[in-house]
């Protein structure tokens, strides 16, 4: 297993050039990673100017922190964490738009613990037959945007950005249990919303 990994080689070359202050290397870093980072920032920040500000903040943080980059992770992974953090910082400075309570989206139960609308249909395997795959992705993205921000942020961090529970808790400054609770409620709400949308599409 001594075959060199091209990506890691490219990272090592670029990091060496950045540490040497090579101007072209900074531009290469931005051009190579800026699009992916912008996509991440847009998921958290609906306004394009906020998303671009977050990407700029992230790169400036990265430029200042290169001496502390230990090379244990991929450069793109390191930048990903930095832009997620920058997007969360920007999100905190924004006034929240009025939004519905998560309770409005959660399943309802009778006093005996039985659901008022039991899940009588298993649609987990049948969606691709009824809705085009691209339509499903667009539908899911639209429903995620509808989630209350506190819950949407946790769902994005855990299920889309791939952070583990501990990392998400640290980034948000909340407990691991709070992350778990919010993630589960966000998923439950998203399930209800998608079921409703799929019913409408099928009708």
């Amino acid at each position, binding site marked *: 297993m001594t075959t060199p990994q091209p990506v890691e080689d490219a990272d090592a070359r670029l990091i060496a050039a950045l540490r040497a202050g090579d101007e072209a290397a*900074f531009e290469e870093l931005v051009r190579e990673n800026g699009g992916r980072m912008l996509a991440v920032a847009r998921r958290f920040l609906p306004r394009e100017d906020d998303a671009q500000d977050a990407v700029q903040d992230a790169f400036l943080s990265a430029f200042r922190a290169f001496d502390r980059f230990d090379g244990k992770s991929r450069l793109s992974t390191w930048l990903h964490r930095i832009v997620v953090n920058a997007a969360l910082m920007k999100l905190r400075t924004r006034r929240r738009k009025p939004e519905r309570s998560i309770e409005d989206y959660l399943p309802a139960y009778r006093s005996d613990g039985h659901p008022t609308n039991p899940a009588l249909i298993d649609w*987990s395997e049948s969606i691709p037959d009824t809705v085009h795959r691209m339509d499903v992705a667009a539908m899911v993205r639209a429903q995620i945007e509808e989630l209350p921000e506190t819950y949407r942020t946790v769902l994005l961090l855990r299920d889309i950005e791939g952070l583990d529970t501990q990392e998400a808790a640290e980034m948000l400054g909340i407990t691991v249990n709070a992350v778990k609770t919010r993630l589960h409620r966000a998923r439950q709400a998203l399930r209800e919303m998608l079921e409703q949308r799929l019913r409408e599409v099928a009708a």
Partner: protein
Amino acid sequence: MSDCHLTCREIADFLMAYLDGDMEADRRAEFERHLGACPPCVNYLRTYQRVVEMARASHQCDAMRPPPVPEQLVKAILAARGASGGAAGDAGSGNNSPPCKG
């Protein structure tokens, strides 16, 4: 739906803990007894798992085909780096390539 001790509401409330293996053996056995007797809760579990997969898949195209980084953003970042003392001269000059098409 089922006559087990756990209600459907509790099944839904503790579903993530069950799926993550974050549940004690006794509780897990009770959970599975309920699932064995309650098709709607099984449907709920399957569709919940599917929603997690769908959420993960919904942004994969961004990762495979990231959007172009706007040229003015590239220039702004490099200029801000220069302004903060990290670079000499105009780091953004000399590149007039058009933005990529997404």
